[in-house]
């Protein structure tokens, strides 16, 4: 591939991810509004929010690591998007496989954790401790799922995985071939979004929104950007693993939004689990489903 083409792809992929992520935030808020019988925000509200937060006059920093943490949180996701193929663009997906992507996606969380740590607020630190615990909870089923899919298709390269699913149309989709893994993956994905009932690390009533407690202005704005990327990455990863990726932009976006709509719709109907209950749930049902699904694959 020509270097210029690759450069354009590497620029476009995070940009697309950001724009789609904004719309996903909008969808999430609209669904919440529908469920709560409200009108919901206007179309550009997520963008307004980001601009507003970045334009605030009072920006409170708790030190250099606080700043760098936010930069890492945004930058890590921007980098991760280039490993996630979209229709017509593969970026550098063949230079780092799904395992790399999985670990690269921890860099933003690490950045956030460091930034929150320097805020010297125990609410934030407890939030991070809970977030890491949640990660230990949902990553176990997620890892089973990823093993199953990559073993079934004999590759960890996302491009190959998507091609293998598209080869035979609907029947070769991961979700059709491995329905149990797909269900386990969906539960793990829901938990990884940190939405209710898995919202243990935000928990406004207990720890005052945890990691966000000392964040305002562009710091909160950075986290907002991170959330856009997180929603996009999680749903697109699921689509790439189970729903055959996208052949055209239309079906790609349709699948991504639909997949995300499932956990989001469930989220606003539930209260919050306690940390140990989240662990118990995640280590039980999705793991059992995943292991049975894996047994079918092996």
């Amino acid at each position, binding site marked *: 591939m020509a270097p210029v083409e690759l450069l354009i792809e590497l620029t476009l992929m995070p940009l697309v991810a950001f724009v789609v992520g904004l719309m996903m935030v909008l969808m999430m808020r609209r669904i919440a509004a529908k469920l709560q019988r409200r009108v919901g925000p206007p179309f550009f509200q997520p963008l307004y929010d980001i601009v507003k937060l*970045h334009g605030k006059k009072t920006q409170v920093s708790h030190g250099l690591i606080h700043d760098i943490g936010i930069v890492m949180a945004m930058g890590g996701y921007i980098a991760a998007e280039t490993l996630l193929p979209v229709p017509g663009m593969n970026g550098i997906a063949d230079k780092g496989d799904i*395992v790399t992507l999985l670990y690269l996606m921890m860099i933003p969380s690490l950045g956030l954790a460091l930034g929150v740590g320097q805020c010297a607020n125990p609410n934030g630190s407890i939030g991070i401790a809970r977030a890491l615990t949640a990660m230990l909870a949902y990553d176990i089923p997620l890892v089973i799922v990823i093993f199953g899919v990559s073993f079934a298709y004999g590759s960890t*390269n996302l491009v190959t995985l998507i091609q293998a699913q598209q080869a035979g149309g609907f029947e070769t989709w991961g979700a059709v071939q491995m329905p149990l893994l797909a269900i386990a993956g969906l539960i793990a994905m829901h938990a990884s979004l940190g939405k209710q009932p898995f919202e243990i690390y935000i928990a406004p009533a207990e720890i005052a929104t945890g990691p966000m407690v000392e964040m305002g202005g562009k710091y909160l704005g950075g986290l907002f950007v991170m959330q856009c990327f997180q929603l996009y990455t999680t749903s697109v990863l699921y689509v790439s693993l189970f729903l055959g990726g996208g052949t055209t932009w239309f079906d790609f976006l349709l699948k991504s939004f639909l997949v995300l709509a499932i956990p989001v719709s469930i989220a606003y109907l539930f209260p919050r689990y306690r940390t140990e209950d989240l662990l118990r749930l995640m280590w039980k049902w999705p793991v059992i489903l995943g292991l049975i699904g894996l047994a079918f694959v092996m």
Partner: protein
Amino acid sequence: MTFTPLDELLLYSGATVLVALLLGRRLAAGWMVTILYGVQLLGLLKMASLGYGGTPISSSLSFQVLGQTLSWRFDALSWFFALITLGSALLSSWYSCGEWERAFRRQGGNLWLFHLAMALNVLSMLILLASGDLLSLFIGWELVSWAGFLLMAMAGGIATKAAMRYITYAMAGAMMIFGGIALVYVSAGSLQYEAILTAVGRMGTAHLWMLVILFGAGFGIKMGLLPFHLWQAPAYAETPGPGSAFLGAISSRMGLFAIALVLVKLFGVVNIESLKIPFTLIDARDLLAWIAVLTIILPTFTAMKQNDARHLLAWHGIGQGGYMLLGLVVADAMGGAGGLLHVFNHATYQAALFMAVTAVIHRTGTADLNKLGGLVVRMPLSFLVLLVGIIGLAGLPPMNGFVSKWLVYRSLLNQGMPLLFLASVIGTLGTILSVYKLIHNIFLGQLRVEHEQVREAPWSMMIPMLILTAIIFITGLFPGIPLAWVASVQQAVGLPVPDYTLGGVTASSGSLDMIWVIGVLFAGFGIGALIFYGAGPSKRVHQLDNYAGGHFLTADVRYQYSDNFYAGLMHLIKGWYRGSFLWLESSVKSLVEFLSLGMQGIYRRANAEFYLLSIALFVIAWVVI
């Protein structure tokens, strides 16, 4: 007689011991031995061809004992481990020179003994690495055990207790190895590697089983493999700072060296795989792999509960050894490369981590994770070192630890080993939790009043730490550099070699190019920085200017979350920490005590009737049966 490069290296190393012994009380002794380690490293680099597939270099020293030829030689495996040994010795010794040394002496530490113990450790390790047959291997093994004991025991107090435990384990291990060597001699008629290689094919299953158990357990004790892991963490953690860095980086890897040499090279993974365990679906190789993943998981989760930074790191050192063994026994191209590369990577970040923690102790006087916090504003460079180190330890990009773990994961994926894969990822997740606690409780959160005047670590300590940090990052960016050495090690022990490039590994089932991944990552950081810093200036506030649920914070309020860090997780899993291995150890101890008491009774009393009765009983039993 001409000196081979190996002779020169061993002579330099011997000279270092002599200098430490004779001139160790001088003020400049630290610098002298550091320079000598540098000379040794240069001597090793003269043999650099070994790292790129060169032919083995032998020592001109060899002699006959009881008809056995003892010889010493270096091949790619020895060279690779020697490089790590000398590198970590050089940097640890450098770190100890100057201010740390003076502080150590002020506190009544015996500097002469410290330098001597380090020099002896290096010499004995080189002798072990150079062993050319099983007998010289055993000699080297014993030397390493005792030299390690010297370094561990010198601090006195708890350290001596830990060291006594270590030497007990080590001697038990040595007996097993000796038994194994005797068994090999019986069947092969020789202790030369070549003779054993040809004899392995003729050995029966039971014989090979016995050998795998004896050597596996004997060498495993040094590595801290389950269930022989109890000695290691306290012994390494209580050693004086730079000694911990050195021990943590390389000492227990001597066990891995011996496993790679004896189990992988001489016996062969294929032969080990052919040893089936009856009535189960697993074989001896699976058994080793499962021991490896248990060694990953259990010590990692023990580390998470530690409240002393040094103990936390030392427990992780045991856990990371599991990845090395796991990769090595999976023994495909990627697994072997991952396991061996992890030895190098682990040495770099573990040394850096121990040094950073020692720097904190040097400045604040404590490593208690509940008594620190907020030091990033006072010691920013040490924070950077610790951060880079924990990213390496947790195995996240962009540091080198990620590459070796990626290789291990990929080999498990390729070989279709889901449970081992899952277990190794659980180990990594546990590590992430644990290292965040480490960095948070030391450097993040609230700065304590008594630490407000703390200064950054002195440059004599900082420079070796920064060198290690650079190595961690550069070998993460260009993993091809160490992978070239690893590839020749794999060839030397008869494993397949992966298709590596400067930036990583290429394979049809998914490649890795760290240059691209890291390039994109830093470009992402750049864009993130543009967005963040483009949004206008921010105002730095005091740490007490903080949300406190409507209250105002004052300097006497401790506003830091450090104790029982993962409370929610511990709520669920605290019942799983049962101290079963401690119980096992103490029951073995009481059994031995009971038996020795019985023996002593018989021996002391000299009760003739009793002897007569027992002999009579034995004879009757023998006749009847």
